[in-house]
């Protein structure tokens, strides 16, 4: 049976994972772009990313581009698997299984 994931189920984290899983597995997205896409504040997004990173579901890559700091975020293989299982669990609930 698919596993329901309480860490991912929180509404903002659910949308973060949905956005990251929609990318190609090797792609990573800029922090500010993700913030605008989700319509949340820097602090709110940072807190949820920290939680997801702690669970091993995302990887955060801090780098410099043209001497400016940039933060990129990507879903890990473990995060993708947990997300798929969570989606399957939601589908099972919907089907009344």
């Amino acid at each position, binding site marked *: 049976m698919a596993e329901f994931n*309480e860490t991912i*189920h929180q509404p903002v984290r659910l*949308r973060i994972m*949905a956005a990251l899983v*929609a990318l190609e597995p090797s792609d990573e997205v800029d922090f500010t772009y993700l913030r605008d896409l989700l319509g949340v504040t820097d602090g709110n997004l940072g807190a949820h990313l920290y939680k997801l990173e702690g669970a091993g579901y995302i990887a955060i890559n801090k780098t410099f581009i043209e001497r400016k700091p940039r933060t990129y975020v990507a879903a890990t293989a473990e995060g993708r698997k947990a997300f798929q299982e969570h989606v399957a669990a939601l589908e099972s609930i*919907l089907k009344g299984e």
Partner: protein
Amino acid sequence: MDISPNEAEESLAAIQRMMQRTRHSIANSGICISLIITGIVWLVGYVCTQFLPSEIVVYIWIGLSVLGSALATVLGIRMGKRVRSPSIAATAAATAKRIGLFWLLLVFYCIATIAVAWPMDGKQRTMIIILFIMIGQLAMSLLLPFSSVWWALPITVLALAGYFLLPGIFYLWMGVLGGGGMIVFGLYIRSRW
């Protein structure tokens, strides 16, 4: 944690919406900026062409083209940094070169066509340039999703309608409906992110 079927359905719908929005945003971010910039160039350029003497209009078009290209390049580079894609980084540069070469050759063919068909008036020249740009845009559907290039079809229809039905206000027509249409469509794509 107990989840009701209703809550599960809402969560699945939220996931679906977010995934679609992300894919849509990534696919169309460049298109939206390019549409808005081209729309502004057309709006200003064609409205000026309708009302100002041709000696001044030439300089306005040169200025608008240089400004539009520079702005599109800067914004394109900035947008490219939002999603890093190591999987396509190697092929992206080669594809960009092929696209650049394609547009360069298209400009050559457009100039050659105008030279062969010479003499022609300003409206005929403008119409041929618009048709070549729209052919190039539609050819981009070989590399981009069709949803990113279909706007070239209504613009072509608008241009042909203005050329054949309203020759007296052709430039104004192209500026307001062609340029304005591109701006509105670009803003519409942006609002759907």
